[in-house]
């Protein structure tokens, strides 16, 4: 069953590149923030999948940390571009 997971991880990592394209193009900082947020989400999925691929259950903790903490930089960016910081 494990064989199914790694191609998906590959596709998701490739999608990160396309998200970085928006980081380059994005005219406003908000666009870039959206790109970063997207990358975060994709990365959590990649981490979960790779954790299964490596058969290491404990690796999932890293994904939880990611899911929790990538949020902070998003909030700071949002607060900054909203002029509230």
């Amino acid at each position, binding site marked *: 069953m494990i064989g199914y997971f790694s191609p998906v991880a590959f*596709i998701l990592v490739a999608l990160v590149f396309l*998200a970085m394209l928006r980081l380059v193009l994005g005219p406003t900082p908000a666009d870039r923030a959206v790109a970063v947020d*997207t990358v975060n989400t*994709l990365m*959590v999925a990649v981490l979960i999948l790779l954790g*299964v691929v490596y058969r290491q*259950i404990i690796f999932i903790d890293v994904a*939880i940390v990611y899911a929790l903490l990538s949020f902070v930089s998003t909030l700071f960016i949002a607060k900054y571009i909203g002029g509230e910081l």
Partner: protein
Amino acid sequence: MIADILIIAFLAVGTFFNTLGIVGLLRFPDVYTRMHATTKMTTFGSVFTALAVIIYGGASWLGSMDTGYAILSIHTLIAAVALAFTNALGSHAIARGAHRSGIKPSPAVVDRLEEVQP
């Protein structure tokens, strides 16, 4: 066997929505519509990939009765819930910040917020 089919289906759904989300990120005209495409559709897709992992863990647990697989499922569930929770808040924060910084929704039929908060 059923588990296999479910995993493949969920992974396919997840990949499909993730891809479409990124396509939307590149195609849509302004911040808000891009946000529609990405933050929610990628969340949906990522949660579905996580669901695939959960099903994999559950099926293996039932097959082998190794508690490790149960732990895998539970932790993945927590990760998925945290992901959904934080993403919703994060995209709200970005949308609010973008609107406050003066980015107007460029193709828009109506903007009620602008009337209240110039």
